[in-house]
């Protein structure tokens, strides 16, 4: 009989238990480290956020500081610019004031001619380079009937600035009703002009001509001169294209942003909306331009206002800044913009760029026409000049306007997108409601089916019903056997009942969830249908409104068509003749 061997494994078991216990300790230590790392991580995140905020605040501070510094510089600079203007051109202001005063005093005949002579001679000495000073001496000599001095002074004035002197005397002679002299001076002024590089003052002669203030003979001269300019410019390569471009830009400047609209569904549910908004703004431009043109041509100039304009033209000539002053005047304007925008140089530059055209010392004749017609505020053009400029530029305006309109129409989207969560479809005119709703229903049904598919009883929960009944049944039988088996039977019965209860509980929960899903999707369906219908209604309205607004372009083209430059000039001549009779 084999001898039995007993091995005492208890030390091994204890050692294993020890290892196990140590592992638990290590595990709990690792958990603690994990927790600490999480805390550190969250702290680092907070620090990062704070740092980001701090960086933003710092950048903001630097920006504000730079603006404040620039504002300070602008305030100092503008004072020094003004001082320099005063130092260099202060005398010019005096000459300008005296010229105005002498012209008025001469009208009223209340100042002795000797006084005028003394004052003008002194001014001549004070402003050695200014063209207006010898003009003033010439006027004084003219008043005193001293032809020799007048001639000498005129020669000096012409030497200093032939163009302005000619214009000044043309206007002074016109005021004194010296028509022949006026004509000669006007001819001289025009002969001084280069149509590709016109002086700012050219707008004045245009104003006077367009307002019918230069006399009938003068108009003939001006009209011929303008005709020659236009012919010459038109023959230049790229001229017509540049004109069209200039007018297109000027027309587009009248565009207004759409702002709040009635198309809330298109705005909210269509990726095409930015384009739709853009073309609607383009279509709205027709009414704006039509009103703008109509307003210009509806305004009548009375004889009185013509006379006032003449005085204003003369006043402008003797009061506006001289060319020499312009660079400093530009600097002064720029610094004043910087101050206006609290040191924001960028905005000041943008505003200067907009004002630049008005500040341009020289420009070509057609740019002058564009500015007069479309930017009367900055070009200081009168209504008469606007009419005349538009009449002369009629063909270019029409071309540019047609191009602007066509470019806008080219952008009209044939199809408009509807983007409602996962529903991304298209409509052309909003007429495909049934088709879109069908697609939408299918999409909702699919989404719903997918959602419901994820909410069914699991295999175990399904098994719980019959499995529980069987286990419970077996347990029930075992209960009657007695002893330990009865105990096991009891457990089986409890487990069986538990399984059945679990099955019905899960089933009830699932059914409730499924009902909720059904309700949610039905709500989504109803809301979606309402949105689609409202969206399509807006598409119909939008297309109709766009068509209506776009059709208003015909008003503009018809209006431009009926402007005839020849008839307009003739009308001006007639008006002038009537003015002369009334004078």
């Amino acid at each position, binding site marked *: 009989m084999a001898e039995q061997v007993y091995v005492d494994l208890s030390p091994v078991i204890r050692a294993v238990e020890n290892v196990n216990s140590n592992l638990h300790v290590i595990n709990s230590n690792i958990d603690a480290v994990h927790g600490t790392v999480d805390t550190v991580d969250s702290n680092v995140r907070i620090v990062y956020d704070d740092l980001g905020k701090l960086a933003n605040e710092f950048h903001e501070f630097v920006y504000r500081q730079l603006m404040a510094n620039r504002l300070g510089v602008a305030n100092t600079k503008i004072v020094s610019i003004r001082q320099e203007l005063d130092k260099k051109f202060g005398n010019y202001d005096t000459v300008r004031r005296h010229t105005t005063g002498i012209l008025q005093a001469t009208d009223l005949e209340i100042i002795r001619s000797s006084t005028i002579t003394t004052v003008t001679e002194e001014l001549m000495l004070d402003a050695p380079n200014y063209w207006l000073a010898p003009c003033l001496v010439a006027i004084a000599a003219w008043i005193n009937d001293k032809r020799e001095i007048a001639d000498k002074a005129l020669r000096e004035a012409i030497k200093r600035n032939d163009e302005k002197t000619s214009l000044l005397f043309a206007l002074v002679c016109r005021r004194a009703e010296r028509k022949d002299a006026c004509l000669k001076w006007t001819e001289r002024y025009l002969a001084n002009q280069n149509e590709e590089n016109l002086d700012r003052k050219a707008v004045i002669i245009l104003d006077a001509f367009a307002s019918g203030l230069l006399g009938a003979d003068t108009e003939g001269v001006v009209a011929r001169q303008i005709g020659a300019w236009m012919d010459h410019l038109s023959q230049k390569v790229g001229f*017509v294209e540049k004109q069209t471009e200039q007018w297109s830009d000027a027309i587009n400047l009248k565009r207004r942003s759409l702002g709040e609209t009635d198309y809330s569904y298109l705005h909210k549910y269509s990726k095409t909306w930015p384009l739709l908004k853009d073309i609607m703004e383009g279509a709205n431009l027709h009414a704006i331009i039509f009103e703008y043109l109509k307003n210009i041509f509806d305004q009548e100039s009375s004889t009185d206002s013509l006379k006032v304009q003449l005085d204003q033209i003369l006043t402008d000539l003797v009061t506006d800044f001289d060319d020499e002053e312009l660079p400093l005047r530009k600097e002064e304007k720029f610094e004043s913009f910087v101050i206006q925008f609290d040191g924001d140089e960028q905005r000041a530059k943008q505003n200067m760029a907009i004002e630049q055209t008005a500040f341009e010392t020289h420009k070509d004749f057609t740019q002058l026409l564009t500015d007069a017609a479309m930017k009367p505020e900055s070009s200081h053009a009168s209504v008469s000049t606007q009419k005349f400029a538009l009449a002369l530029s009629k063909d270019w305006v029409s071309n540019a306007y047609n191009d602007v309109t066509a470019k806008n129409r080219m952008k009209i989207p044939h199809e408009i997108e509807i983007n409602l969560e996962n529903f991304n479809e298209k409509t052309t005119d909003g007429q495909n409601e049934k088709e879109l709703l069908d697609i939408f229903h299918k999409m909702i049904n699919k989404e719903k089916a997918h959602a419901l598919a994820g909410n069914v009883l699991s295999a175990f929960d399904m098994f719980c019903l019959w499995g529980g009944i069987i286990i419970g049944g077996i347990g029930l039988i075992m209960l009657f056997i007695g002893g330990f088996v009865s105990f096991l039977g009891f457990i089986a019965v409890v487990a069986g009942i538990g399984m059945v209860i679990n099955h019905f509980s899960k089933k009830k929960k699932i059914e409730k969830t499924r009902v909720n899903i059904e309700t949610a999707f039905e709500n989504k369906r109803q809301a979606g249908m309402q949105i689609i219908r409202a969206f399509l209604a807006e598409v119909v309205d939008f297309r109709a409104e766009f068509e209506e607004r776009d059709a208003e372009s015909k008003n503009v083209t018809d209006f431009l068509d009926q402007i005839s430059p020849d008839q307009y000039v003739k009308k001006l001549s007639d008006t002038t003749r009537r003015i002369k009779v009334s004078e």
Partner: protein
Amino acid sequence: MPRPMLKTQQTAQQQENILSTTAKPQTKNETETNEESMMKLDRLLRRPRSKAYMEAMTKLDAGGKANNREKVQELINIIRSEFPEVELAGYLLGYVSKCYLGNPYEVHILDANGEIVEHYQKGKPLPGGLEKARSIAIRGGYDFIEVYSDCCRAVSSNGSVSVIK
């Protein structure tokens, strides 16, 4: 992009394109730059279209695919005579206009190379670079759109031309 030429009195090769005249020359003034040539061409093509040209274009919508070779040729001759002084081969891609045959047709085209008048249904893309003019042809309110390689020229019923670059 092929450069269109303004025609001079010199002899040059004959073109097969619908807008090339039968024996017209295709040379370029040596002193004239391409830019000047293009600008002159732009001015020429800005000119309002003649009544005969407009009428010829409205015949495009005669119905169905134009199989009558003689009619198409007659149409092409009228179109060609609109710009006798210019060679547009390769520059003018074709014409697109709204189709009034009714649903499902949307537009019809006159293909400058293939001399084909064809009507296109909704969803069927236009060939040869003409697709860009589809939307404006349908919705722009113009009689037809001339499609060039670098721009479109939309022609209104009164013959006036708008340029879209």
